[in-house]
Each structure stands twice: as structure tokens, then as C-alpha cells.
């Protein structure tokens, strides 16, 4: 547990970067600090490992006042990941990862063995061990940065915009893996970002700071989306927050209706006149796309790939309301396709049905 107790940071030039901050980052959880540029996120984070000394107030690490520890001792217990990874260019990847164990005097062979395991853990192939940072892409370097912070198995990790310097696709992969890793490791993590979407995706709790270093709201992601405390937080969280909040509500078991299908490669059925859209599945019953029966099929005998409309997303039974609604809205037939965990078709729902479910949830929550 990390606890900020009336922590203030005033820089020598008079800038108050953090103003009497009260905040607790619970053990084993991810606490995200988010807010506009210059609001004091980095300053707050770096005061935890005393890269910056607070002007006043106390930061507690469990029951210890951090100010009472030698800085290098404190820092060796805290993993630290920064934006551009900050890898040491003159050391191989494996030695970069083993930095802190080396500092702690761990046997070199032992430390390298652990480093290799970590390399795999963060999703990099073992032959990267002997490479140098310059031989890795930005995203790969960032993974090494995470591995390096984990090497001494510190209970606490501080991460300052670790994924912001990579492109969106890689960023998503890194975020997903980070969550998976955290599920296994259960570290106490303080994570800084200026991206509200990242905050909501990763945080167990999110602290929104406003410029001047004031804590505006500390809440779980759902609560932040559904009940922003004031206009600033509401504005920062963004316009479609209601829709995004659905991402945190499970749909429960959707009552689906059966959906007529045709298998890929079968003969094109002749016009059933009720509906023009027919769902196409493969041999494993996995939905592939929609067939427009009203279209002109000259030259085609069977249902083939190039006849399909693919755009629609799929909802998983037991998934979120957001996914269910999105499946309906993105389907050309207006019917959202629901599949089981294995990806096989269960049936379909309509947007109206999902909305009724949402309304029902709302009334449940507000007695």
C-alpha cells in the first residue's frame, strides 16, 4: 500500500506541481493517475521513489515513512518504468533486465536465469537475450523495460506513460499483456497516463488530477464514467462516457433467438422473401459474415468469401452490454450475433432488446 498524506511539491521557481495530495494506492491493485498535461502526475509518481523530494507531507510505503529510508534502498524495492524505457545501450538485453539483481549482489548466473524467464514472460523470444537495445523496436524495448522493473520481484511498480511512445496497435497489445501479467503477479502499481481510455482500461481505481496538482476525483472506472464528480472530470472523461460505461456492465445471459444460417460453400438458397440478410457460418458454426439475398448472384453457384459482408462485431455470451449493443449496431441486418466462448453461434439479439436490458439494469441500480 502506498499512501500520500498531505503531500505538496513546490518547485524552486514557485510552481506548485502537487497540492496537499491525499491518495491511497491499494496493495495488489493498479492505481492510475490521469489528467491533462502539466497537472503533476509525473511529479506525484516520482515522489514515491524519491526521485523528487516532497516539499511537505509524508508518503507511506505500507507502514514505513519513505523519507526515513536511504533513497537507493527504497528504489531497489520499487520497479520503475518510464516512457522511452531508458534501457542501458551498452548492456545486452539480459543484463539490462538483471540490473537490480546485480545491484543487490545476486549471483550473476542466477540473476541471468531469472532475467531469461522474465524475457519470456513479457512475450519476447529467448534469442533476444544477447541483443542490445539498439537492435529492438520501440515496443520491444518497452517490454524489456517492464521486465527490468520486475527483475528483483519488487512489491511495488511505478510506471510513467510506459506505452505512450508506441503506435496504437502495439499499445493495445502491451496493455493486454500488462493486464494478463498483473493478474499473475498482483503487484501494487501506480500508473501514470494522460490517456483517459488507457486509464479506464487498466485501472482498478483512477485518480483524476487537475492542473495545479489537485485531486479531482478518485474512483473506480465505472463510477468515473457514470458519476463524474464535476464538470472538469466529466469533460476530461469525455463525451461518449455513457456508452463506454456499458463496457463495465456484463450483459448476463442474453436471451437470443435462433438465426437461420447457411454454410460457407453451400449452394446459394433461393429467395426466402421474409428477410434479405442471411448469416453465413463455417463448418464449425463460427459466424463468417452476412449474405444479401437481394443481390445479383450471376456467375455464382455457392456461398463464397467474396459475397460476404463482414463489418459486424460479435458479442460473446457473458460479455459486456457494450459489446452486445455494438454487435447489433454494426450488423447490416440490425441483429447482433452472439457466440459462445469457443466462437460458435448461439443466436442473435436486436438493439431494442439490449436497450431494454440496459434500462432494466438502470432501474435495478437506482431504487
Amino acid at each position, binding site marked *: 500500500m502506498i499512501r500520500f498524506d498531505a503531500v505538496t511539491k513546490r518547485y524552486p521557481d514557485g510552481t506548485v506541481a502537487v497540492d496537499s495530495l491525499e491518495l491511497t494506492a491499494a496493495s495488489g491493485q493498479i492505481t492510475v493517475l490521469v489528467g491533462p498535461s502539466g497537472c503533476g502526475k509525473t511529479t506525484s509518481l516520482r515522489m514515491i521513489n524519491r*526521485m523528487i523530494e516532497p516539499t511537505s507531507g509524508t508518503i507511506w510505503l505500507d507502514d514505513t515513512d519513505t523519507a526515513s529510508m536511504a533513497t537507493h534502498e527504497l528504489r531497489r*524495492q520499487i520497479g520503475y518504468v518510464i516512457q522511452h524505457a531508458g534501457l*542501458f545501450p551498452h548492456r545486452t538485453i539480459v543484463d539490462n533486465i538483471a540490473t537490480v539483481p546485480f545491484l543487490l549482489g545476486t549471483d550473476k548466473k542466477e540473476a541471468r536465469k531469472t532475467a531469461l524467464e522474465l524475457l519470456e514472460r513479457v*512475450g519476447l*523470444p529467448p534469442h533476444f537475450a544477447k541483443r542490445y537495445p*539498439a537492435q529492438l523496436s520501440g515496443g520491444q524495448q518497452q517490454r524489456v523495460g517492464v521486465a527490468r522493473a520486475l527483475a528483483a520481484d519488487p512489491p511495488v511498480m511505478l510506471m510513467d506513460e510506459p506505452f505512450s511512445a508506441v503506435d496504437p496497435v502495439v499499445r493495445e497489445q502491451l496493455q493486454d*499483456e500488462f493486464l494478463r501479467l498483473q493478474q499473475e503477479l498482483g503487484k501494487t502499481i501506480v500508473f501514470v497516463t494522460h490517456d483517459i481510455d488507457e486509464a479506464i482500461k487498466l485501472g482498478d481505481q483512477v485518480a483524476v488530477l487537475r492542473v495545479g496538482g489537485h485531486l479531482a476525483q478518485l474512483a473506480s472506472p465505472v463510477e468515473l464514467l457514470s458519476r463524474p464528480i464535476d464538470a472538469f472530470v466529466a469533460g476530461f472523461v469525455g463525451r461518449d462516457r455513457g456508452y463506454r460505461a456499458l463496457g463495465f456492465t456484463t450483459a448476463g445471459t442474453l436471451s437470443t433467438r435462433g438465426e437461420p444460417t447457411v454454410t460457407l460453400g453451400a449452394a446459394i438458397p433461393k429467395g426466402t422473401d421474409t428477410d434479405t440478410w442471411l448469416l453465413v457460418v463455417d463448418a464449425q458454426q463460427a459466424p463468417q459474415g452476412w449474405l444479401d439475398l437481394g443481390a445479383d448472384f450471376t456467375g455464382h453457384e455457392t456461398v463464397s468469401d467474396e459475397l460476404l459482408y463482414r463489418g459486424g462485431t460479435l458479442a460473446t455470451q457473458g460479455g459486456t452490454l457494450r459489446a452486445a449493443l455494438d454487435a447489433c449496431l454494426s450488423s447490416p441486418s440490425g441483429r447482433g450475433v452472439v457466440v459462445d466462448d469457443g466462437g460458435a453461434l448461439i443466436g442473435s439479439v436486436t438493439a431494442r432488446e439490449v436497450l431494454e436490458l440496459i434500462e432494466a439494469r438502470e432501474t435495478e441500480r437506482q431504487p
Partner: protein
Amino acid sequence: MIADVVTWLTDSSHWTDTKFDTGIWTQLLAHLKFVGIALAIALLIALPLGLFIGHTRRWGWLVAGANALRALPTVGVLVLLTVIISPHFQGRTDTGFLIPTEIVLVLLAVPPILSNTYAGVQNVEPGIRDAAFGMGMTGPQVLLRVEFPISLPLIFSGVRSATLQLIATATVASYLPLGGLGRFIYDGLAQQDYPQMIGGGVLVAALALLTDLVLATIQRYVVSRGITRRFSSKQAVPDSRIAAVHETDGAHA
């Protein structure tokens, strides 16, 4: 003339000492001695100082001051110091000439080593320093384990340029009655023995080239490949396309 120079250089009697003349080997050793002493002193002064100034970012004016020394004419300072110092060392020894020579050589070698060391440490990416401190390295650990190895290429180029200037200027020491390879140049000039004079020039040039080659080789082995980027072709720096492929691989691993 070239043929005469070759004859002078290949005449084995010029290489060893005779009753009247000091041979090439002896003068070469003398030359190396001037250079070696000065280089050692300059390293002892400039390396720690440069590391310290670069790391603490204090006393930066010292570097500027040392660089201003470069505007001094070496020969002038050499003569001035000799005129001041040598009268205090009457007698048979060279000390009266050796001390001013070494002072001039050290003055010459300090600025390039100092300013390159300083620049090397100073230019270490702030993110790397930050990460090093953030992981719990102490100040000296950051300096010796991170900043120093990363600055090595620049430090080496400072040391190499200092060494070359030392070899060149140690030649001028023969302008005073001291040994060294410059002896052949100044004696050749005085005796109008031009093959000897030019031969001396060739020897100095060869020594400079050889020394630089040795230092370059040492540098090659001492500086991390991660910094020189001298990677074997098999694991070349990934271009972005290859990197993207690895990225996806990793994600699904």
C-alpha cells in the same frame, strides 16, 4: 630525394647507437617516454575531472577555461617555460628541459580529454540517467556503470586526439636539446642533411599512425557493441517492418 630517404631509413647503422650518434631505437624510446608521461598525467587530471563535471554539472567553466588554452602557441609556451625553468637545473641532467616540455605536453593533452569526457557524460540521455537512479543506483554507480561506459566513444576520441598532438609536439621538444624523434629533423636541418630530416618526419608520421591504430583497436574491444552498433549481419538493427512482425509474434506467444 625519396631514394635517399629510403637509404637513410634502411641503413641499419642509423637504428642503433654509435659512439657519435644516438640511434633511432633510442630516440623512439625517448619520444615514447615524453608522450607516455604526459599522457598519464593528463589522464589522471582530465578523466576524473571530466567525469565529475559531467556528472554533477558543476564547474562547467573549467572546461571552457581548458579549451581556451588551445589558443596558446605551443612553441612559445615551451620556450617561455624553458627560459624560466632551465636555469634552476644547472648540471648534466636534462631535467631543466624535461620539466617545461612535460608541462607543455600536459597542457596540450588536458583540453581534448577533459572536454570530450565532459561532453560524453553530459550527453548521456536524461532518460537513461533517470532510469539508473530510479532503479536504485547510487551516484558513483550511475557514473561508473552507466555514464562512463556510454561516454567511452567520446572519451576515446579525446584520448586519441590528445595522443596524436602529444606525438606531434614531443617532436618539437627536440628543438630544445632533448632527444626524441624530432632530433633527426632538427639535426638534419642544422646539418643540411635532408635525407635525415625527412626520414625523421617519416618516422614521426609512422609512429603517429601506428599509435592511433593501436588505440583504435583497444577502443574496438573496450566499447560495447550496443553503442558502436557493430552488430553481426545476422542480427542487424530491425527495420520497422521486421520489428512489427516480431511485435505480433510476441503478443501471441
